[in-house]
């Protein structure tokens, strides 16, 4: 849902028990990029007129049972699901992506990394669909450098789901070499088709394993993540 009056979007960052990238997201959006941001406690149901909801990284509910499985039933998620159903913009980062999958807002599941290791490093991403509101401002052919930090980021979906994701341009980011090629050796976790991020068919719900909020402050040496937040920001302004 886009307001008729053009203005900067207001972000809402959901805080689950065990979220640990909520403050990073808040800091990047507010202090670095200048957006208005509110924290949204998982036990609340009010989204405080947010235009974009961020489900941040972390280990909601300790990752007990399965990643995202319990968080998906937090009271705030009913509001997030209703918001998304009406076309509201939702972005799940890492654990947030896992929660979106468990909630059925995006298809598939994230399995344990095929190496069984927790992987924390910078990766390179190709932007496979630059028509989404989250990627519109990223120049064509640009390869993004953004860190990942997860133990369960191995994207899996059945053959038919993968085919329909490809057919509908729903694969937004893929793990690549620094020059944007997509060989298996640059796949850090075993994800099907090197998938690092997908969007729903309607184009309002993005899930991605890499952490754009950790690549938004120039003082930390990387700013490609800001391109994603600024894309959605600009979309609201135009």
């Amino acid at each position, binding site marked *: 849902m886009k307001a008729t009056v053009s203005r900067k979007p207001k972000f809402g960052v959901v805080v689950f028990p065990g979220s640990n990238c909520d403050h990073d997201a808040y800091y990047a959006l507010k202090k670095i990029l200048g957006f208005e941001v509110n924290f949204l406690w998982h036990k609340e149901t009010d989204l405080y007129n947010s235009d974009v909801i961020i489900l941040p990284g972390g280990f909601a509910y300790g990752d007990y*049972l*399965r990643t995202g*499985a*319990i968080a998906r*039933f937090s009271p705030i998620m009913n509001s997030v699901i209703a918001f998304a159903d009406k076309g509201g913009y939702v972005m799940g980062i890492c654990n947030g992506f896992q929660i979106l999958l*468990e909630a059925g807002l995006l298809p*598939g*599941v994230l*399995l*344990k*990394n*095929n*190496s*069984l290791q927790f992987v924390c490093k910078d990766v390179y991403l190709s932007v496979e669909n630059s028509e989404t509101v989250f990627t519109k401002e990223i120049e064509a052919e640009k390869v993004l450098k953004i860190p990942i930090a997860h133990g369960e980021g191995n994207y*899996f*979906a*059945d053959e038919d789901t993968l085919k329909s994701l490809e057919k509908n341009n729903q694969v937004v980011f893929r793990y690549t070499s620094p020059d944007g090629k997509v060989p298996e050796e640059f796949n850090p976790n075993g994800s099907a088709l090197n998938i690092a991020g997908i969007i729903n068919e309607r184009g309002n719900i993005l899930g991605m394993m890499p952490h754009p909020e950790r690549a938004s402050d120039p003082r930390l040496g990387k700013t490609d993540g800001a391109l994603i937040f600024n894309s959605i920001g600009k979309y609201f302004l135009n």
Partner: protein
Amino acid sequence: MFKAKVLIKRRPSILDPQGKAVEKGAQHMGLNNIRDTRIGKYIEFIVETDSKPAAEKEVSEYCSKLLANPIMEDFEFTLDEIKDGVR
């Protein structure tokens, strides 16, 4: 009241790297006949109702929506009636 016992298994089509890693341990122990180790979950709990159909319905919903993710897991459960408050 019923005691529910739920068994959750990875679907056969889903790789189990954890099972493979554990099996390496078996090889290091010298157990050479162990094959196809796959790790699942066992969950048990009490269902506070006297109606078996009601218990089945609730457990089934618990399993399919929360305890197991049908994209990667299959589940089965049993319900045993608890008499005299013995759990």
